[in-house]
């Protein structure tokens, strides 16, 4: 039987797959940065409106040295986190209540379908009138928008509970609390994690929107200030920071979801975006 072994012959220049992927990614980022450096320098777009990457990074450095920047960052983080926690709690509780009764699911389905597509931005004028340029305006928008992904996912998850297991719990006359803890929560957990991940992204978008449009304190407000005062490199730098925040939220919650559900046999796959 001939089985060819290594024979000391490895393909030249072969790296582990993940290393070459990282390498390609770095190349990609460098390429994009170079493009945005060259376009204004070459005069294709006026550097006044589109500063080169180097100018943006320089402005970023200067901003990071100011206290106002970090205060704004904290304000955004606070609005995001607080709103997210409220939305997740409300969505999870409502989801468990609605999801565990088929009658309730059927009755509320159309209402949810009616309310869900109502754009959260419709509430902006209401927030302005009720709360003005304050944290509570941000919270109103963030909670409203982030509530729905969690609610829908938890309803799905609770409805997915194995009916045989549920009947077993019933026949053993397990208390409501025990049933929830040992049967419903583990089944619904993957769905909940997906919902939290989606809501986290939505919450950030709405927090920035509220700050931008209403003027609540935070990075979004700083962006508007930069635009109004024509501090263009600062404007781009702040947008870059907000983008980094978004990446951090996306990556962080994807990792959290994987970690929490590492033991779960069927990790829910949600379509990307």
């Amino acid at each position, binding site marked *: 039987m001939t089985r060819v072994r*290594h024979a000391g012959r490895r393909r030249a220049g072969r790296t582990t797959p993940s290393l070459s992927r990282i390498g390609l990614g770095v190349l990609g980022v460098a390429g994009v940065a170079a493009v945005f450096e060259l376009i204004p320098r070459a005069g294709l777009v006026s550097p006044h409106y589109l500063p080169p990457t180097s100018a943006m990074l320089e402005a970023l450095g200067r901003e990071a040295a100011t206290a106002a920047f970090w205060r704004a960052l904290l304000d955004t983080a606070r609005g995001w986190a607080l709103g997210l926690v409220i939305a997740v709690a409300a969505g999870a509780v409502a989801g468990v209540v609605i999801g565990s009764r088929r009658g309730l699911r059927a009755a509320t389905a159309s209402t949810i379908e009616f309310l869900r597509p109502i754009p959260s931005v419709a509430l902006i004028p209401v927030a302005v009138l009720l709360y003005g340029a304050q944290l509570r305006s941000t919270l109103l928008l963030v909670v409203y928008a982030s509530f729905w992904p969690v609610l829908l996912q938890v309803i799905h998850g609770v409805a997915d509970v194995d009916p045989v297991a549920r009947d077993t719990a019933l026949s053993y006359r397990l208390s409501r609390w025990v049933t929830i803890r040992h049967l419903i929560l583990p089944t619904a957990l993957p769905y909940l994690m997906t919902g939290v991940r989606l809501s986290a992204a939505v919450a950030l978008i709405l927090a920035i929107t509220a700050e931008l449009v209403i003027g609540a304190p935070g990075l979004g407000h700083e962006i508007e200030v930069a635009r109004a005062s024509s501090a263009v490199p600062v404007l781009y730098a702040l947008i870059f920071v907000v983008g980094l925040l978004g990446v951090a939220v996306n990556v962080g919650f994807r990792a959290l979801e994987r970690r929490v559900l590492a033991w779960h046999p069927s990790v829910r796959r949600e379509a990307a975006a």
Partner: protein
Amino acid sequence: MTQLLEVRRLRKIYEGHGRIVEAIGDLSFACAPGELVCIVGPSGAGKTTLLKCVAGLIAPTTGEVVLGDARVAGPPPGMAVVFQDYGRSLFPWLTVWRNVALPLDHHGAARGELRRLVDDALAEVGLADVHAAYPWQLSGGMQQRVAIARAIAYQPKILLMDEPFAAVDAQTRADLEDLTLRVWRRHGITLLFVTHDIDEAVYMGQRVLILSASPTRVIEDLAIDLAAERDQLATRSSPRFAELRSRVYEHIQRAKRAGAGEVRT
């Protein structure tokens, strides 16, 4: 007589996960035009790899496949393939009729000619009345018939079938075997039929190529001298069938033992 298909010293080596596996060792055989050749071997013997090399879907490490007078360097024209996984080889968003017509349509067949070929092919496999259905609405056996009809309509010189009936029940398998024989005889195509079922290989083939375990090569090229007209009942209960069947079985058992590294007796 010139051969239609020649496989010369085919060798395929896979590298992966730090291991190097020789899927196919040194494999050579030939098919004359219009022959029905069956290929059997123990599982893991690289039968599917061989078929994919012949079909031009993967490139061999060394050696070559020659179809007609041209070397195969990619899926050649005039060749049709029927895969085992019928559920995934038919387009779920096309009706049965459009599935069968697609290759001809792409290659620019004239409307009238196309309709004739497709209708004839569907009638030949007995699916004329479900032409407007979607594949997933049909049973497994019927889906495989759609795949066969598609191959027929394409009018290939050579047809490759990769364990096509492994995933259907025994009764359906018998029907499909007989259908394949009828199609083969009617159109005079060359048929290369890969299977793990020894009975099926002996029942269907004019020749049976028996493969060894990995690294695969041809152990024996057995001529099947049964009557040309095959019948599920009569042929399979004939003494000659039993003899041939035992021959093949013995070879494969030996191949399996040799592959496992035991001493040959």
